[in-house]
């Protein structure tokens, strides 16, 4: 059994038995302790029986490990009927001799104790059942019913101790379920006998929504998650969250994916969002969040890739109609199977259901992008911490899968302090955050869009006016002159005014230019006259200088002649 995969034995050397149950193998580091009993405790209705049954069914169906399910509370027919809706095909597995069901019924009223006894009957039944199907797994569901059925608690205790030891000797991986006690994990202290692995299930209500949780109380010799993990029972059985690991080791992509709006692409370093990144579009009501989300989805589908549009406010029909009004025809994408609209009210289920539902959809559709529009509604289902946890899981899951995620979030107020935060508290997890704002001026409300942040890319710091018409989304520069921001009609009016002003100014400038040119020419002419005068003066001066030199030379010559004639020494 230890040859199946390297994961089968943990670092500690404990052999693990994969349960095949979503999420449980992850948090137990590979499954339940192989060849040992595991106790599952919890109150009535917490899903103990289902967990035990799924362990057996998945073993028989998917992991080639036949199993025996011994029920102490339900008949075989009831067991088969109960899991019918889960698609376990238990009846078929029983017919194929891969699972053997044995229902132990003890009527307290029929029993008369007449002396010493043991529970050899159980051993015989289990032993023959294990031999009959070659069982590797055994489930004993509700075994503490024995305490109620048999008068002597001391004998039952001793026999259970012997039974669990015997199960180990048989080499089967067993799960034993027991009802929750008031102060103990199980009412009859079964945890005393099952010391290898104890799992506790809990079922409670919060905000009128049922939440299920699972905790690994102990797991001898193995590393395991110690948190309470949200769990879920739905039409596919049991799921434990996280159903993906929460490490930050996902590989990031340098590829880009278009926002579906060319001008917005330009604002984001010219090429749009990073593939596999998380995008948040937040803004007040009616600011155009869904439109940006739709543009993105439309862009993805146009490239022939699949997109999941998860709407928590509008029905698919409503989305189609509304988006057609701004020029997005989504129907062809749906017809081609590229766009999947999934509309569900957040308050319909607990957060875990939504998370698992998203996982399932993503796994079946394998989209390139997921749009959640909006995430705000989830706040009604859980408190901020829970919602944040869930969104973190969604973000991590989608990132890990390399899926670009776009979330929209409604902000309540228009003040900057309110705008630049989200009720869900996820802004720190977001890679690209687009903010939409409504501004009111000149009797109209106009939309502004800006990039609040965008990790890992040069992005525009400018505000754009965001316009919706029946041809789609347009972004245009806002008027930013004269110390104010103008949009819409005010911007157009201001721009017209500016144009007129510009013309007048240009004319004035041209006039000024001409006047200056005339002045320049006048000066140039005067400069020429003066230069001529200067030349005349220079000429006279040079002449005088030459005459003086000649005069000096003549005079010196005459003096020399005189000295010579007088014979002086």
């Amino acid at each position, binding site marked *: 059994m230890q040859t199946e995969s390297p994961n089968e034995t943990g670092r500690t050397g404990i052999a693990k038995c994969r349960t095949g149950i979503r999420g449980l193998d992850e948090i137990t580091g590979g499954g339940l302790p192989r060849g040992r009993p595991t106790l599952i405790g919890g109150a009535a209705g917490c899903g103990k029986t289902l967990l035990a049954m799924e362990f057996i069914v998945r073993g028989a169906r998917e992991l080639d490990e036949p199993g025996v399910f011994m029920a102490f509370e339900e008949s075989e027919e009831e067991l088969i009927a109960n899991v019918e809706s889960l698609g376990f095909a238990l009846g078929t597995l029983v017919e194929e001799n891969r699972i053997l069901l044995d229902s132990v019924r003890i009527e307290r009223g029929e029993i008369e*104790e007449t002396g010493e006894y043991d529970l050899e009957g159980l051993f015989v039944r289990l032993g023959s059942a294990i031999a009959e199907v070659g069982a590797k797994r055994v489930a004993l569901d509700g075994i503490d019913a024995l305490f109620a059925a*048999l008068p002597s608690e001391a004998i039952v205790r001793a026999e259970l101790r012997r039974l669990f030891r015997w199960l180990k000797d048989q080499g089967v991986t067993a799960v034993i379920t027991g009802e929750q006690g008031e102060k103990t994990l199980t009412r009859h202290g079964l945890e005393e006998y099952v010391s290898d692995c104890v799992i506790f299930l809990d079922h409670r209500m919060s905000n009128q929504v049922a939440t299920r949780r699972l905790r690994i109380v102990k797991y001898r010799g193995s590393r395991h998650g110690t948190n309470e993990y949200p769990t879920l029972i739905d039409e596919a059985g049991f799921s434990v969250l996280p159903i993906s690991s929460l490490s930050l080791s996902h590989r990031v992509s340098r590829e880009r994916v278009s926002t579906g709006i060319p001008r917005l692409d330009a604002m984001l370093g010219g090429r749009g969002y990073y593939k596999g990144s998380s995008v948040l579009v937040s803004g007040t009501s009616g600011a155009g969040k869904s439109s940006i989300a739709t543009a993105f989805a439309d862009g993805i589908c146009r490239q022939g890739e699949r997109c999941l549009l998860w709407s928590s406010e509008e029905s698919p029909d409503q989305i189609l109609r509304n988006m057609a009004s701004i020029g997005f025809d989504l129907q062809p994408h749906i017809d081609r199977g590229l766009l999947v609209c999934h509309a569900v009210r957040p308050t319909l289920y607990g957060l875990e259901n939504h998370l698992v539902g998203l996982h399932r959809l993503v796994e079946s559709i394998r989209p390139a992008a997921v749009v959640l529009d909006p995430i705000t509604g989830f706040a009604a289902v859980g408190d901020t911490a829970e919602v944040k946890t869930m969104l973190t899981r969604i973000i991590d899951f989608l990132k890990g899968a390399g899926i670009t995620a776009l979330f929209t979030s409604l902000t309540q107020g228009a003040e900057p302090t309110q705008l630049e935060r989200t009720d869900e508290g996820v802004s720190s997890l977001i890679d690209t955050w687009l903010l939409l704002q409504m501004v009111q001026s000149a009797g109209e409300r106009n939309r502004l869009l800006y990039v609040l942040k965008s990790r890992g890319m040069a992005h525009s710091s400018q505000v754009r006016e965001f316009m919706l018409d029946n041809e789609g989304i347009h972004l245009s520069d806002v008027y930013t002159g004269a110390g104010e921001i103008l949009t819409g009609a005010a911007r157009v009016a201001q721009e017209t005014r500016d144009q007129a002003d510009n013309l007048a100014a240009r004319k004035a400038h041209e006039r000024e230019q001409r006047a200056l040119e005339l002045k320049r020419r006048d000066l140039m002419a005067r400069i020429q006259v003066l230069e001529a005068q200067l030349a005349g003066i220079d000429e006279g001066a040079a002449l005088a200088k030459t005459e003086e030199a000649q005069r000096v030379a003549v005079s010196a010559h005459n003096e020399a002649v005189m000295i010579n004639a007088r014979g002086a020494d």
Partner: protein
Amino acid sequence: MTATRLPSSGVDSAGPVPIQPESPRVDDAAYTKASVGHVLTLYVASLTPRSVAAIRSVKDVCERHLQGRYELEVIDIYEHPTLAKSEQIVAAPTLIKKLPLPLRRLIGDMADEHRVLVGLDLRTKDEAG
């Protein structure tokens, strides 16, 4: 085997059955048949001392209180594990009183004769031993 027997239809009712005077043969450890009054099956898990004690006690009680009016079958569940399942045997030894109704399961080595008699509806709970 004794020749006298009750019509099988007669055993369907929970009411008392006519007393049969003959002595049944009790030397066959596995199977003792009488004209039917009590239909009993004793399930044991192999012939452990506890099983042997139970067999002996049951036979003793039957002989003394039900002479000629009972059927007793002794079955080793190790040899017939399917019976352990179909007859809902959990404890061993278990004596099942199928008739007269109501069905009763007597578990243990049958050392407590009072309880055995109560279990076989031969004595009420409060009646002194």
